[in-house]
Every structure is written in structure tokens, then in C-alpha cells.
């Protein structure tokens, strides 16, 4: 089987640059509110794609459609891995996770009574094989599995520099660290596609730099494709290869950071109409 990346943190079988995710004419509405109106986009293997847009533009709704939490009324989401094409709008969230699509949330959604290690280990869920009997017995296959996966997690702990807190319950950790643990939990899945919903929201400059460094590490060393929602334009323009702009549920811009910055529609969405200001 051809594999672009042999690194453990990446479970995608595509070569860099191949089409990985294709969102096709997505419509989503809640009652009378149209959250997404005909959004189409493409994401290629190993790029960092940023989705930006004003509040309420439908960014998180789009991610929720990709991870199966929302079911769009119309449109298709195609995902490519293992030489196969999957249609994500027909799958349940846990089935989508098995394809290697991992994500973090805008408001931290960690298991707050569990330790950092247990949170990361839950990220390994789809790779673990213990059942109720071997688990209850522990000694034997379940213990071997726990130790093997612990070894795997220690690499992620190393990467994210969270050695000192591995046994702390996450509920007791500072906000910035919780965000980092949430990234770790997504990485533990060995993502083929990593989706991050505002991973730097509410962070100070130093924490943002750390987080940007981790995302770049994961992308450059391990070749993981990243879709990121972020409001800090400095960060977005610095780290992303591809920027998609949403406004009122529709796509108004798509291209490299430079192209998007020059796009008049995008400027209008962010700064308002010029003549409106003058009048």
C-alpha cells in the first residue's frame, strides 16, 4: 500500500498534495436560520487549511458537519483514505473517528475528572481491542495493550511538553494547558485529518506561539493535514497554506493567504462597505 507518510502520528495513506477532503454544495439550516448555504471546498493532504470569517459565519457548523455532529440537509462531504472514498454525511461521529478524523472543540470538551493520561488514552479508543472480559481481568492482553499504548502516548506527551502534568486530573489544569491536552487527545487518535476549532482562543502571546509551534510540528514532521478555525489573523496568515473565508454561511474567498488578503469581498466582510463608512 502506498503511503505518503510513515510517521506514527499520521494514519493517512495519501501522498502530499492529493485531494483528501471535498465538501460539495453543503446546505445546513436550523429552522429558518441558514447556517450554511452551498459551501464547497477542497482540502489536500498535508496542507494547513484555515477557515476564517466573522462570528456566526458558519465555521463551526461546517466542522460539525465534517465530524458528523450535524447532518446537512443537502450536499456531500467526500473523504479519501486507504484507497477508498467515504461519504461523511452518511456516517455517525464514532464511525468518522475510525477514519482518522480527529478534532478539538472551541469550548474545551475534555473529560475533566480523568487524568491527562486517561484523556489521551481515550483518544486511543479506536485502536484498543480490550473487551469487557479481558478488561475486567486486566492481567494478560489488556495489560499488554495498556502498556504498549502508554509507550505511544509518551511520545505525544514529549511532543506537547506536558510531562509534568500527565497524572493530574485535567479539570485542575490551567486553560492553556487544557487546550494543549485537547490537541494531544486528538493526536492520540493518529489522525489522518486534524480539525482544530479555535485552538488559540483566549491565550496569551506566548501560549499562542507554543500552540502554533505544536501545530507546525505535527504538520511538518508528521505530515498531518490540519483544518483550523482561528480569529488571530497574524497566526492564520503565518502558518496556513490555504485560507477559506466564510460569511453568512457562504464561501466568499478561497486561496493562499496572499490572495485572500487582496480579495475585495473578504475586505468588505471584515471592514464593512467603504461607502457605508463615508455616508
Amino acid at each position, binding site marked *: 500500500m502506498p503511503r505518503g507518510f510513515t510517521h506514527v502520528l499520521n494514519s493517512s495513506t495519501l501522498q502530499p498534495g492529493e485531494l483528501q477532503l471535498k465538501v460539495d454544495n453543503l446546505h445546513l439550516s436550523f429552522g429558518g436560520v441558514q447556517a450554511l448555504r452551498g459551501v464547497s471546498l477542497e482540502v489536500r493532504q498535508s496542507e494547513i487549511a484555515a477557515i476564517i470569517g466573522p462570528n456566526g459565519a458558519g465555521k463551526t457548523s461546517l466542522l460539525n458537519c465534517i*465530524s458528523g455532529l450535524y447532518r446537512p440537509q443537502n450536499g456531500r462531504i467526500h473523504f479519501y483514505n486507504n484507497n477508498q472514498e467515504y461519504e461523511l454525511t452518511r456516517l455517525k461521529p464514532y464511525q468518522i473517528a475510525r477514519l482518522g478524523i480527529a478534532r478539538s472543540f472551541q469550548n474545551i470538551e475534555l*473529560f475533566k475528572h*480523568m487524568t491527562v493520561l*486517561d484523556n489521551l488514552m*481515550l483518544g486511543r479508543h479506536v485502536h484498543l481491542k480490550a473487551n469487557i472480559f479481558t478488561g*475486567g*481481568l486486566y492481567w494478560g492482553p489488556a495489560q499488554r*495493550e495498556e502498556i504498549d499504548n502508554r509507550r505511544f502516548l509518551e511520545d505525544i506527551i514529549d511532543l506537547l511538553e506536558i510531562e509534568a502534568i500527565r497524572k493530574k486530573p485535567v479539570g485542575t489544569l490551567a486553560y492553556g494547558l487544557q487546550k494543549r491536552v485537547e490537541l494531544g487527545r486528538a493526536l492520540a487518535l493518529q489522525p489522518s485529518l486534524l480539525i482544530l476549532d479555535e485552538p488559540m482562543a483566549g491565550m496569551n502571546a506566548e501560549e499562542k506561539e507554543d500552540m502554533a509551534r505544536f501545530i507546525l510540528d505535527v504538520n511538518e514532521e508528521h505530515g498531518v493535514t490540519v483544518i483550523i478555525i482561528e480569529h488571530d489573523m497574524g497566526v492564520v496568515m503565518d502558518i496556513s497554506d490555504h485560507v477559506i473565508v466564510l460569511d453568512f454561511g457562504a464561501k466568499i474567498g478561497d486561496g493562499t493567504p496572499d490572495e485572500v488578503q487582496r480579495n475585495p469581498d473578504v475586505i468588505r466582510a471584515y471592514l464593512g462597505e467603504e461607502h457605508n463608512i463615508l455616508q
Partner: protein
Amino acid sequence: MESGIFHTTYESDMALRRTPLMRLRLILVIAAALIFPFLANGYQLTLANQIGITAIGAIGLNILTGFTGQISLGQGAFMAVGAYSSGLLAARLGMPWWLTLPFSCIITAVVGAIFGIPSLRLKGLYLAIATLAAQQIIEWLITHWTVLTGGVEALVVPTPTLFGIRMNDDFNFYWIMLLLLSATTLFAVNLFRTKIGRAFIAIRDQDIAAEVMGVNTFQYKLLAFATSSFFVGLSGALVAQYRNIVNYERFTIETSILYLAVIIIGGLGSVSGSIYGSVFMVLLPAILTNLGRALGGVIPGMSRLIPFIQQGVFGITIILFLIFEPEGLAKIWRDIKDYFRLWPFSY
């Protein structure tokens, strides 16, 4: 005072008893449990057996409510399923008592899983009401399906014997109880440090994140209902075999609430807490009764008041625990251990 324990393998780092002191404490507890029946009188043994049976049921309920976050008011009914299964299999089919235990556990697990189906859509208090329906439906079936259960009449269970020895006298039953309680405890503790148990806790803490990380939440909720009911059924079956008699009145909604109190006082989401809670809830009424009897000579009319005082103290205890230590006896015990571990530098 320890300066630090440094593990050099993941195996020792992940062990249940990580330090020599912890292992010593476990050995002492086991030794005490083994010596106890030779020193105790009949009354104390009866209490110990009650504690053991309650603890198995409480661990079962804690798996569902404390660990998976699915509130259940059907505990009494599920115990009834276990008790009636065991009693009927022994009384009607002549099955040996020890063989009825696994059968009644499995029957209760299936019934529990069926009544867990509403958990697909319902959470929290709404699910509690749905399990309350389970309680009522099962109670109604038991009292009205007279041909099978004997209705409101008590079901007499043949005396359990092993090699001609009567097993439900206090001394002999103690060993059965101890064996099954140890197995239940070990199973539960191991479960929650491996895949399935971790998924249960994840569902309690953040069910949407669990689903997105690959946990089929509905399947796991049903599994939690089944696993929980398995042990609750065991607890019920033991009641049947120990008492020789099964009566639906022992398994009403009051029982369900009592068990919720046990795990709240012991500690939600704690296996050892389930045992502490059971000790507390069995001994408290016993102590109050004895106290009342002792005071009966001094204060006239005391014996009539005992039931009311018991109810009152029961209620006050729960309120006090909810206010001052919502994490229960397990947390108090943990705090005591931490205090002495750090003593005399406890800052």
C-alpha cells in the same frame, strides 16, 4: 514520610498498589476479612453478610450511575429480577443454587440492557424517570404474573447446600459473599483502568467529545446498563439464597433510593466508596437500634420512636454528605491518607 517513589517500568507505574505501604495495607485488610468470622458472633456475621450483599449491588449501581452518569431509579427492580430468577430456577427447576447465580446475573443483565434503551435519547433526570418506569413495570409484573412468581405471596427458595452442608448459615455464607465481593471489586477496578471503563467515564464527563473520539455512545450506554445489572442481579440472587425467601416488598422504589444513598455517601464513581457506603448504611440503622434499646430503660417510649429516629438520621446524613463532602466517604478516606502521607509537613 516518603521522599518519592520512582517507577522504572510502565507496568509498575500503572499497578493498582504502587507502593510497599499500599500493598501492606491491602494484606492487612485481607487478613482482617479472613480472621473476622472466627471472632465475630452470629449478629455481627449477619451484618457482615448484609454489608457484602449491599456492596455488590452498590458497585453495580455505581458502574451505571457513578461512572457512566446514567441515573437509575430501577435498582430495586433489577435486584428483584436477580432474586426471582435465582429463586425460581432453584424452586421450580431444581437447579443447584450455585448454578442459578450466573443464570440470574445474565437474565438481569439482559433485562437491564432492555430498560437502558431509552438512554439513547434521554439524559439526567429524564432518564431517571424512564428507569422509574422500569421499576414500576417490573414490580407490577412480579405482583400480577402470579403463575410464575406467586404474586404477592413470598417465594420459598430451597435451602442452598454444598456437599450436604447448609450454605446460608451466617458463617458459611460469609465465605461465599467474600469470594463474590472480592471478584466483583477486582473486576470493577480493572474495568475502569482499561478501554471499556474509560469510555464509560468519558460518556459521563462529556458525551459528545466521547462520540467524536470514536466511542459508540449508545452501544456503551447499553453495555453499562448490562454490566451494572449483572452485578445488581448477583446481589439480588444472593439475597434470595441467603434469606431462603423472596418477597417483592424487599425490592421496591425505597430500595432503589437507599442504594442511591449508599453510593452518594460512599462516593460516586468510586469502587471502594461503594463498599464504604454499604458499611455505613448497614451499620447506621443497627447502631441506632442498639442505642435506642440501651436508652429504652432510661427514656420511656424510646423503642416506639426508633423507626422515626432512624428515618430522620438517614435523611440528615444524606443532606450533610451532599453539603460537606459530595464526593463521599471515599474522598474522606483519601484525605486522611494524604494527611498522614505528608505528615508532619502537611502544607
